[in-house]
């Protein structure tokens, strides 16, 4: 078992295959010297001995699932670009900011060359003429590590003109964000990269693969997704798909935070690892802190509907998690023990999404704000029973119809599968509702205990929210 002071949070325990975190044990893992000593750029060299089509087929054949949230296979995504339309761009999504998510920052700080190599493999395979590596503004160490690595990689002939003496030429441009959660959404990321406010675009027609950066076909891939490619090219499809399951091959990075005995970032085997393994396994989180019991957990980032102990045997398999009423999202598990005040926890998340609404869509801008305000009143003990129904009513204006939730046998509830319908352009509005809906579905008694049964509830002033 090991943890490393230079990779805070990363836990290297148990005997599992490592695809993206293998170098974390080295303090100098971010240097080109260490990268060269550990098979660095061998994946790129392997790719360049094949045709772009062959490399694309390998990525498609390995079913490398997107690790940013939606879980869409990268090879399939690349294939969605209209044939013979150029130029095409690659935008790397390093804007990690989904509540609970902590993995892309580690990958950028600890192994920037692996990410650069992944970008090069993608650009080669999919005919992408320029790469923009968009890093979240609040991650200056990641900027410095990636900038240094890019400078080294240019000097060594891995990036730029005539890479390794071939006719493959591509620039990778390091780009800075400036603090806006919604920019993690791929069309907002593109708007931001065009120098505009980060407001998501309507899909259709603005599917990035068809109409992306500057109106051209654009691939937006997550940092972890691209970081998988060097290993895949070195070891081949069979080795990659030998790990995990057919529909969820390989590994994935998962951050488990909150009330566990040992919070941490783990590279787990995809598809087969269950939440029970992760929360209670000796090589993972080793149970709930202080011998407390598990009350609920958020399985896939703040946007995800909550699970309770009943769902502990759900594996990291998107379809199973979806059928169970939530999603795996960005590999972020937040754990609440039995001391947790559920209405306050829900308010914390709802406040985040209300705050991060870009303001474009009324149901999100107004709905998120009112969800937050009404919930605040309830948490303060100033709400009424009518407020609880009001919360659901506001939610339905953002997500009409049945909202996904997990089964709850004590309450006689069956699961409503993911996904939801929405009246907004992107998922920020629904994400403001998800914690409210989950908390009210599974723990309504805690809200009812909180409401004051007085008709004179506190008035909420109608003022602008900043």
């Amino acid at each position, binding site marked *: 078992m090991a943890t490393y002071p230079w990779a805070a949070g990363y836990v290297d325990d148990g005997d599992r295959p490592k695809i993206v975190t293998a170098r974390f044990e080295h303090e100098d893992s971010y240097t080109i010297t260490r990268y060269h000593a550990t098979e660095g750029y061998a994946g790129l060299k392997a790719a360049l001995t094949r045709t772009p089509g062959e490399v694309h087929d390998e990525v498609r054949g390995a079913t490398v699932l997107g690790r940013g949230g939606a879980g869409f296979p990268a090879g399939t995504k690349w294939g969605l670009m209209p044939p013979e339309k150029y130029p095409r761009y690659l935008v790397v999504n390093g804007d990690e900011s989904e509540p609970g998510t902590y993995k892309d920052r580690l990958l950028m700080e600890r192994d920037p060359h692996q990410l650069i190599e992944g970008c090069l493999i993608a650009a080669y395979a999919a*005919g992408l003429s*320029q790469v923009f590596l968009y890093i*979240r503004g609040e991650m200056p160490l990641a900027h410095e590590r990636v900038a240094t690595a890019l400078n080294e990689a240019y000097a060594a002939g891995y990036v730029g003109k005539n890479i390794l003496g071939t006719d493959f030429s591509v620039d990778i441009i390091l780009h800075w964000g400036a603090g806006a959660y919604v920019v993690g959404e791929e069309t907002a990321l593109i708007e931001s990269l065009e120098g505009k406010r980060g407001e998501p675009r309507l899909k259709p027609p603005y599917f990035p693969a068809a109409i992306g950066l500057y109106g051209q076909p654009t691939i937006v891939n997550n940092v972890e997704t691209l970081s998988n490619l060097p290993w895949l090219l070195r070891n081949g499809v069979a080795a990659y798909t030998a790990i995990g399951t057919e529909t969820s091959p390989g590994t994935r990075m998962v951050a488990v935070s909150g009330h566990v005995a040992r919070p941490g970032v783990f590279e787990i085997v995809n598809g087969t690892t269950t939440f029970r393994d992760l929360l209670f396994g000796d090589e993972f989180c080793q149970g709930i802190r202080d011998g407390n019991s598990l009350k609920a957990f958020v399985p896939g980032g703040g946007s995800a509907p909550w699970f309770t102990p009943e769902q502990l045997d759900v594996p990291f398999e998107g379809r199973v998690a979806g059928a169970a009423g939530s999603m795996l999202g960005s590999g972020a598990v937040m754990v609440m023990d039995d001391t947790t005040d559920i209405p306050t926890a829900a308010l914390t998340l709802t406040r985040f999404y209300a705050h991060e609404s870009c303001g474009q869509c009324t149901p999100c801008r107004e709905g998120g704000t009112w969800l937050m305000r009404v919930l605040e009143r309830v948490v303060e003990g100033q709400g009424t029973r009518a407020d609880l129904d009001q919360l659901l009513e506001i939610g339905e204006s953002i997500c009409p119809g049945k909202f996904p939730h997990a089964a709850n046998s004590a309450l006689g509830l069956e699961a409503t599968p993911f996904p939801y319908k929405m009246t907004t352009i992107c998922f920020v509005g629904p994400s403001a509702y998800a914690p409210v809906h989950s908390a009210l579905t599974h723990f309504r008694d805690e809200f009812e205990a909180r409401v004051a049964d007085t008709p004179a509830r506190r008035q909420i002033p109608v003022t602008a929210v900043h």
Partner: protein
Amino acid sequence: MSRLNEANTILAKEIIARYPKARSATIPLLHLSQQQNGYVTEEAMAHVAELVGATPAEVQGTATFYEMFKFRPVGKYLVNICGTMSCQLMGSEALLHHAEEVLGVKPGGTTADGMFTLEHAECQAACTEAPNMQVNYRHCHRMTNEAFDQLIADLREGKRDADIPAHGTLARIRQQIPAEKAVGPVSPDDPARPVWTPAPEVK
């Protein structure tokens, strides 16, 4: 002087030259202006607009969307305490209250000596290391009240100058693209197939 100075204007032009469209450099240039002045001034936004070929209003519209840009002076150190779920579950509210007491300001406020601005921040991607905070966006993990007091004392005494630069400076290392290696920006108006990509087979 709150337009970009001569050296930064040269740097700004280098950055712009990497993008197919100049306006894409808006956010990096706003960061550059904030690094120079500590915050983003109207004159700087007008200068950025000139440089990227946008109107001052367009640049202001972009700038005001993003939380990292400040439009009035802030402290030398921006102290951001995360309040999102993982940190909240692990006691971030108590840490924030402690910070308020120690610094004598509420979130949004700046200490009278201009050293510290306190902010209640959202998820900082360090969720396993809760409660987390940042000083000028440098992470401080698993904070306690005692660690906070020590950090503030060290900052006052200049003991963290090596790893925490003054507000406005983000990365101290910049990407450098050697001219002889640069491919240069690929214009969206250039429909040529990349040379390494084979033509589709004629069926």
